[in-house]
């Protein structure tokens, strides 16, 4: 699953981009992701808006066109209704009692004509096309051929039915050629007791309908045209002449058969055709709207949306750049400070300002730096004391005073010819030095330490003329453990010098080594004069100790404390020396340190 994903990523070259993304700065990551996110949102919004707008624009065009066409249809219907009404009025006035010659009729027609300027003429013909009466009363020209006119035909064909002709040029009278729509009806009336077929013709000016239709425009180029439902003849078309000339084409076939809207193509341009029937006259109004005009609106909107998107994108990049640099600045500052620390400048400090997280981080960093500084100081102090102690330990290895005393004793023994003792003493001395040197190691086995103590005690016993006896007791397990070297010798020296020397009876010193769990305990016990609790308390305190003052052993108090400090430096603060003493009873010193069974840590302590 994961490997497949990786393969796809690699295939798309995304791996490369992901790697780049990983290695690029926070600033650019924030900036780009913020910008991309915004871009995506803006694009999505623009897309949705565009869809919504274009759909509603389309609907609006459809709705608008059909509303306009409906309006034209209604107006036409109303107009035709009005004209039919008028026709009936004229019919009643003129033909009641067949009295068309009446003076009164003439007056009534006058009033009618003057009230409606769109009535061109009223005329009554008999079945042969001879004029019976007309208004205004002008002679019909002989070349008019009334009986051949289409309105006469339709009136004669279906009697008592009002028919509307197509618009045509009226050629009945001299001097005028007006475009009219003829309303005609064939009627049978009783005249002088005889039935008589007549045709009543009312010509209405086509101008009104022409104006009504030519005023309508759908969009910039759209228009309205009217066709005759019966034969598909063009009643009105703004470019009627061009169509007759064959310069233009209007496909009326589809308009004839359809009732709603349909889309056709003319000269490669899509057009929306909306058809509405005008029932009372048998015509059809067709509205033609060009869809490419709507497309231009759509394109304009598209351009506008792109502009908006571009502006938003640029602004968002700017904002995200600001934001990114604002967020990245404290991090960069932190980085610079860390670099300074890296170079070794521990004195720097981060200012505590910026966002909450940055302040927290800065304060943590400052605390950490503080701790590092403290530790460094501590290390310096510890290193210094370590060196000092080791120097002292080195000095203890070859205490010239001790050597001088020992050799003096040897000389005395030579004078007394105590050969046995001399051999013992010299042997002990040589072994003492061998162990105390122990190839420069700082850590030796407990057995060696005890050996060292035994030689030391042997020498001191001889020096002090067997004023004390000594004993070494060690657990088998403790012997293999390791200890700092020469820790016992200062304590033994102390026991002899301060405990045993002033004792009247024979002194006794016992050295013990044992394990208490994981703790190695070395003990030096004497039955000397002992110390007061005050003295015991002051013994391990830093500063001049009361034991030191005026003592012959000079400096041994310092040596004891050095042992204590060395152990604690090496093994930790839990370990070290502890005294138990009672006046006239004796003193017990315990050295406690961890039981170390191998000397691997030894090397690290060697300097």
């Amino acid at each position, binding site marked *: 699953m994961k490997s497949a994903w990786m393969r796809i990523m690699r295939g798309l070259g995304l791996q490369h981009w992901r790697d780049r993304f990983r290695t690029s700065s926070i600033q650019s990551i924030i900036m780009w992701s913020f910008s991309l996110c915004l871009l995506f949102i803006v694009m999505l919004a623009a897309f949705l808006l565009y869809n919504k707008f274009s759909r509603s624009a389309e609907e609006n065009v459809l709705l608008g066109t059909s509303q306009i066409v409906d309006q034209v249809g209604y107006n036409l219907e109303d107009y035709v209704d009005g004209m039919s009404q008028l026709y009936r009025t004229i019919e009643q006035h003129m033909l009641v009692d067949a009295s068309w010659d009446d003076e009164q009729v003439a007056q009534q027609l006058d009033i009618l004509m003057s009230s409606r300027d769109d009535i061109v003429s009223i005329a009554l013909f008999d079945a042969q096309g001879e004029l019976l009466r007309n208004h205004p009363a002008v002679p019909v020209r*002989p070349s008019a051929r009334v009986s051949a006119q289409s309105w006469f035909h339709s009136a004669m064909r279906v009697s008592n039915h009002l028919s509307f002709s197509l618009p045509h040029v009226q050629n009945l009278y001299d001097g005028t050629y007006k475009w009219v729509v003829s309303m005609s009806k064939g009627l049978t009336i009783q005249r002088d007791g005889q039935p008589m077929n007549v045709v009543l013709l009312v010509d209405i000016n086509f101008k009104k309908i022409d104006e009504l239709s030519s005023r309508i425009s759908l969009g910039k180029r759209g228009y309205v045209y009217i066709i005759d439902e019966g034969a598909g003849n063009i009643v009105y078309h703004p470019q009627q*002449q*061009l169509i007759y*000339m064959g310069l233009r084409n209007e496909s009326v076939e589809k308009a004839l058969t359809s009732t709603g809207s349909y889309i056709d193509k003319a000269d490669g341009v899509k057009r929306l055709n909306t058809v509405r029937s005008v029932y009372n006259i048998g015509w059809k109004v067709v509205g033609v709207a060009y869809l490419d005009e709507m497309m231009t609106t759509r394109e304009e909107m598209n351009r*506008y949306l792109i502009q908006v998107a571009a502006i938003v994108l640029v602004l968002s990049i*700017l904002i995200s750049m600001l934001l990114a640099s604002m967020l990245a600045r404290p991090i960069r500052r932190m980085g610079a400070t860390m670099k300074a620390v890296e170079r070794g400048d521990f004195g720097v400090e981060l200012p505590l300002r910026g966002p909450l997280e940055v302040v927290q981080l800065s304060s943590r960093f400052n605390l950490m730096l503080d701790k590092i500084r403290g530790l460094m100081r501590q290390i310096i102090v510890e290193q210094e004391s370590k060196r000092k102690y080791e120097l002292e330990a080195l000095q203890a290895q070859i205490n010239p005073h001790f050597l001088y005393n020992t050799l003096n004793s040897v000389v005395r023994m030579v004078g007394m010819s105590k050969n046995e003792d001399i051999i013992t003493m010299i042997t002990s001395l040589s072994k003492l030095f061998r162990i105390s040197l122990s190839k420069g190691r700082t850590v030796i086995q407990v057995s060696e330490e005890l050996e060292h103590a035994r030689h030391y005690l042997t020498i001191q016993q001889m020096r002090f003329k067997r004023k004390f006896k000594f004993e070494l007791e060690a657990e088998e397990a403790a012997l293999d453990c390791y200890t700092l070297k020469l820790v016992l010798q200062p304590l033994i020296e102390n026991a002899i010098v301060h405990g045993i020397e002033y004792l009247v009876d024979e002194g006794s010193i016992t050295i013990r080594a044992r394990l208490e769990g994981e703790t190695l305990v070395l003990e030096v016990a004497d039955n000397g004069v002992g110390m007061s609790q005050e003295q015991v308390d002051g013994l391990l305190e830093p500063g001049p100790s009361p034991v030191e003052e005026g003592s012959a052993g000079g400096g041994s108090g310092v040596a004891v404390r050095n042992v204590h400090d060395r152990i604690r430096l090496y093994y930790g603060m839990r370990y070290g020396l502890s005294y138990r003493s009672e006046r006239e009873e004796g003193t017990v010193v315990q050295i406690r340190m961890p039981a170390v069974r191998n000397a691997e840590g030894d090397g690290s302590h060697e300097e």
Partner: protein
Amino acid sequence: MRSSNRQQECRVLWRRLTVLLLISALWIMGMAGCSSSEIDSARLEPRTIALIAPVHAEEQGDAMRLGAEAAAKEYGYQLQYASFKPNEDAGEQLAAALRMVEGGASAILIDPANEGVLEELAAAASARNVPLVALNDERLVKGVQGAITVDHVEAGRQAGEALAKLIGDAGSVAIMRSDRTDPDLELREAGIREALARHPSIRIVESASCGNLRDACWNAAKGMLDASHIDGAIALESGASLGLADEAKRRSEAGRLKIVAFGSQVEQLSLLQDGVIHQLVVQNDFSFGYIGLEQAVSVLSGKETPGSPTMLETKVVNADNMFWMNNQKLLFPFVQ
């Protein structure tokens, strides 16, 4: 040191990028502002094309205007129309046309009164780089990008054939000319003569000539008819046809004397209906306006124009077919 240098470079880069983005933002905003103002100005002032009507031919000019307006609406132009009163002549036409050129019309359509008007206007128009289309004129003088005319020879032929048919292929016919020299009329006459020559029994007798005045033409016709017996006559101009018709009526020979004429004036049509004039050769003035404007638009949009004049067809109408649906719109273009 090196890393701090890089940081500095980075910072400079960022700053530059910021400035660049700011500039581009301003530019885009500026673009948006500009484009919207462009749309506004385009909406306020659509480009105009001027139509200069012919002199002494009000109806013809109005028909041209209808055609030109239809085309102007289709191509999104506004039409400016200059018409003339009957007493105005070539001078006024030229002045009006030059005013249109000065007024910043994108293109000019003109039915020139004479060659002088066309040449002078062509010079002025080409100086301003305004396309010029001549209507009803086949002279493509320098500076005229297009010309629309009818095939006058063919029209003459149609008239000749029609007359030959009317008089039954035999008899004497006369031609009423104009008293001015007009190459168009000469072409018409050539066509007539060519057609009549195909009928050996038809003899062309002495012809008369007159100007644009009806009375003068009546007199000329009277003289012509007095001079010899004539079975049929062709009038090259509408004025001549009206005079001829008047004389025919006066002699009560209306109907017997076969008259064929050019033009579609209302009086001519009325005479045609009444049978005084027998055939009319008509041209579609609406098409002149429409096609003329179409050509002007195609010149404006940088398309090649046809090197030769565009020829339109003429149509022969008589009393029987003059009220046919197709011919009504041609003969009576205006809804009154």
